[in-house]
Each structure stands twice: as structure tokens, then as C-alpha cells.
């Protein structure tokens, strides 16, 4: 097949690079969501330990 003209080839190249970037962005977003969930749960645990009476206390 002869080489595609630049305006037509550009669409394919853009699509391929967009697929790659989308995969990375979605992956990082999912990991980011997991880390924010860990942060929230950690905050809950800190609150829980703050409510506990100190050992040996009244």
C-alpha cells in the first residue's frame, strides 16, 4: 500500500498515541483513587485511636 498523506496518517498516529496515554492516565487514576481510599481509612483509624483511653489512664 502507498504511504498515506499526512492529514490522513495523522489521525491514525494521534489515535495510537491517544490509546497509550489513555491507558496510562486511567491506570494512574485508579491507583490514585486507591491511595485516597487508604488515606481516608487511615484517618478513620487515627480518629478511632484518639477516642481510646490511654493505657493505664482513668
Amino acid at each position, binding site marked *: 500500500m502507498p504511504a498515506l498523506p499526512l492529514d490522513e496518517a495523522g489521525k491514525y498516529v494521534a489515535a495510537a498515541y491517544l490509546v*497509550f496515554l489513555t491507558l496510562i492516565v486511567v491506570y494512574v487514576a485508579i491507583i490514585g483513587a486507591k491511595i485516597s481510599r487508604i488515606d481516608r481509612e487511615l484517618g478513620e483509624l487515627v480518629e478511632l485511636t484518639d477516642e481510646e483511653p490511654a493505657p493505664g489512664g482513668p
Partner: protein
Amino acid sequence: MYSKGSRPLAVATVLTVLAGFALVFFYAPLDADQGFVQKIFYVHVPMAIVALCGFVAGGIMAIKHLRTGDRSWDMRSYVAIHLSIILGTGVLVTGAIWAKASWGHWWLWDEPVLVSFLIVFLLYCVYYPLRFSIEDPDRQARYSSVFAIAAGAFVPINFAAVRLAEQVTHPRVLSQTGGNLPGEMRLTFFVCIAAMALLFVTLWKLELTSKHASAQLRRLRARLELRAEERTAGPATASLR
């Protein structure tokens, strides 16, 4: 545990990826045969190479798990395979786009390189149902490691078999003579491979850090709940005496 050295690694990854993109679009010459469409090569081939190396690395980590009994190696193996499957999805999609642009077809079933990669990809898709159908954590880790080793050994065998097969349409990139890439293209290609490998290691460490933190949090919660139960049960036990 896993986050050590993550920051310089992330900086190196971003810089290498940006350098790779800059080389692809501003330095590497246009291909005489395919023209601008050939730029897909710089994302498609590094993704394929890193994905296949990730599968093999997953198998090596699984060997470490079976030899040492340390479950953290199973987790490393799982994350490497998981990331390789994500990259494999990218390889199949970008490959189909490139095939459509240069051959006029999304897929060719008589092309050994394409079909063999699809077989490897589908083989590893079986890893998830196998792993998550086993509830006992030790058995899950052991069976997953056995699968990762067997499938990891299949990857280079499959690669060699395809190299021996007659070339139909798909070009051969890596050869003993260094391929047919001119200097600028070869430099760009190697920078793109380095960028993809660094991206893989960065994301692998990021996911391992997240999984490790999550596991530690679960342990901490369980320990606090146990302590709270002991405290509420304590006075009741004391009054019975």
C-alpha cells in the same frame, strides 16, 4: 518498603518519556515507505517488548516465591503480569490501528507475529480467574506462581518459534544485524524502549506501594478491633470472677 527511590525514578521516567516523544516527532526522519504512519512504531514496539519482558519477569519473581516462600514475591509477580496485560492491550489496539493505516486491515489472521502475541495475551488473561478463584492466600500464591512460571517460559519459546516462521507481512525489528533502522530512528527507538521500561518499573512500584499500604492498613484495623473486643470483654470477665 516499595516506595524507596520512587521520586527520582518518577522524575527520570517523565524526562525520558518527554525526550522520547520529542525525538519521535522532531528528530526521527519520516519513513521512506510508510511516511508519517510509521511513527506508531515508536509506541507500539517498545510496549510489546516491555510487555513480553514483564511476563518473563513475572515468571522469574514467581520462581523466587516458590524458592523462598516469601509471599511478597508473589505480589511482585502478580503486579508485573497485571501491568504487562495492560501494556498488551495497548499493543493489540495500537497494532490494529497501524495495520489499518499501512495494510488496510485491522487484523491479519495469517500473520504469525500478530496471532502469537494474541495467544500470549489470552493465555495471561486466564491468570486472573485462576488467581481469584482460590480463596486460601497460600494456595492462591502457590498456584499463581506455578502458572506464572509455565506461562513465562512459554513467552521466549513462542518468540523464538515466530522468529523461525516465514515472514509474511509484519516487519522484523530486532535482528542480529541490528535491524534496518537508520541511526536517528534507532536512537529514537532505544530512547522509547528506555522510557517504556522506566514507565513500567515506576507504575509497578506505585502499585506495589499501594497494595502494601492497603495490606498494612487491614492488619492495623484487625489489630485495633481485636484490642477493642478484648477491652469490652475484659470487665465482663473480671465481674464473673
